[in-house]
């Protein structure tokens, strides 16, 4: 499955004009500030925006083609949508909410079975309850299961965690991780929280003022030095790592990744667990020689691959290769000149903080 879209929508002051191509698997995050058009784009994919014009094709099927007068209704698209706030039908208990989409899905098209969905989202004990008797986190889990039971060809999530407090977010995130790992269904995830993007996404679409400003695989897109100024604090890389061992005395996890070893504060990890680490450009500094008398634990040797101007004239973005691991460092132009950095220079990257996701 692949999504090709060239869409405009909106009236008056706000206008979305997005051209994009989404991969047919994994999680695609639509990221941007509020008002950037990410929710409008999602609603266009679902067919819920009556002002949507342009072209939309999903696995070879044309869902929208304004020139030919094609606009497939939402209920014929087979898209699951999880909204920001609780959207369970108040007149139905959890069981009948879950059955709503399932019953309307032809048996031949059903891909996730009942027990599977209940188990995946941990809601088997809630079946007889009415939505008003559920917590915010439980409601979202039921809403996700309900969407999945309709066997959508694409699951759309519109800031599903935004209305929840941190403990509830922490309750749901592991379930989203599981969806990601265990289901083949492509997901489009709208959020303005980079933490959720870094943790869940495989692909990233950055939106600003109704336009797509960058799109591509998560880590390489986030590492692009030419991102608009509003995203510059987010520039960095997402590192896939495996826990090598856990230092129980100092409570540090030793992670092995493409660039070598990283040490991060332990968060319930066990050896051989896979995890993701986010290293932002602003948290990486450079030295010409390894400094050993520093409190910074993570120091990796690398080679300068490129030097780009930053949006602030005092700073530059230095792209490095540490073994096979790309890293980006944001340093001042003055330091760059003092260290006489150029493409091919050997440097040590000092990582001030690496966030375990």
């Amino acid at each position, binding site marked *: 499955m692949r999504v090709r879209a060239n869409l405009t929508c909106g009236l008056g002051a706000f206008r979305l004009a997005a051209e994009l191509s989404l991969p047919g698997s994994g999680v695609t995050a639509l990221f941007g500030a509020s008002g950037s058009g990410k929710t409008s784009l999602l609603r266009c994919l679902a067919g819920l925006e009556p002002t949507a014009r342009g072209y939309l094709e999903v696995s070879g099927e044309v869902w929208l083609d304004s020139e030919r007068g094609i606009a497939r209704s939402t209920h014929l698209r087979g898209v699951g949508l999880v*909204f920001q706030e609780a959207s369970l039908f108040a007149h*139905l208990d959890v069981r009948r909410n879950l059955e709503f989409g399932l019953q309307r899905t032809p048996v031949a098209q059903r891909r996730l079975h009942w027990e599977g969905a209940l188990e995946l989202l941990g809601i088997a004990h809630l079946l007889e309850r009415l939505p008003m008797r559920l917590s915010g986190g439980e409601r979202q889990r039921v809403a996700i299961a309900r969407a999945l039971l309709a066997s959508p060809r694409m699951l759309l999530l519109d800031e599903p965690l935004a209305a929840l407090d941190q403990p509830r977010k922490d309750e749901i995130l592991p379930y989203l991780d599981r969806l990601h790992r265990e289901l083949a269904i492509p997901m489009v995830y709208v959020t303005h929280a980079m933490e959720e993007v870094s943790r869940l996404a495989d692909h990233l679409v950055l939106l600003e003022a109704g336009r797509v400003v960058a799109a591509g695989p998560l880590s390489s897109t986030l590492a692009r030095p030419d991102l608009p100024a509003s995203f510059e604090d987010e520039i960095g890389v997402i590192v896939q790592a495996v826990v090598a061992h856990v230092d129980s005395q100092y409570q540090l996890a030793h992670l092995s990744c493409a660039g070598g070893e990283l040490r991060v504060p332990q968060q319930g990890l066990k050896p051989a667990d896979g995890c993701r680490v986010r290293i932002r450009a602003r948290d990486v500094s450079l030295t010409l020689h390894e400094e050993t008398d520093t409190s910074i634990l993570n120091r990796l040797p690398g080679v300068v691959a490129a030097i780009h101007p930053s949006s602030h004239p005092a700073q530059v973005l230095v792209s490095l290769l540490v073994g096979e691991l790309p890293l980006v460092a944001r340093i001042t132009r003055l330091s760059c000149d003092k260290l006489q950095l150029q493409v091919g220079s050997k440097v040590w990257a000092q990582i001030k903080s690496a966030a375990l996701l």
Partner: protein
Amino acid sequence: MTADDWAAIWLTAKLATLTTVLLLGLGTPLAWWLARTDSLWSRCVGALVTMPLVLPPTVLGFYLLLLMGSQGPVGQFTTWLGLGLLPFTFTGLLIASVIYSLPFTVQPLQQAFRAIGARPLEVAATLRASPYDTFFSVVLPLARPGLITAAVMSFAHTVGEFGVVLMIGGNIPGQTRVISVLLYDRVEALEYTQAHYLAAGMLVFSFVVLLGLHLLNRERRV
């Protein structure tokens, strides 16, 4: 209680029941359309539907009499159809009641539909429900308190009408003589004991209906 009383009670119940059934059938799509549309046209229709609330029933009755009379367009049409003239028949009274009680059906339904908002409809569409399916499986169940209010108010309001009946229905036993008209007759004839039966009966009926409605709606909220 005489046979006349019982005939009037039976006729009133029949009129109110048929009016309510017709109103729910006509008023539900109308209220749905009014709740979902915002145009000059829908506002005009909305105002027109509300007019029986503020107009004296005699005004309504007068124009209906003219429309359905032998010179009126509706009257000529029904004559052409071979149905004869509608004023002073049960059918004529039924049509007048439907128009007269229309706002009591449309307003609670319109409010209930508005309160549902767009979200449940969008959710249903993403769960493969067609608009028609959504209306019956999501909208109507969610609007149940509004439906109950609409039905009860329309029924009770029809039972209580007098001016329209007098103008369009007259006072034909078994045809158009409903409780309120019979009560008027009794008072005019100074049959106060008979009048009391009917008047007190209406009083108790109205109180019980309204109390029941309040209790029912409160129960839904808890």
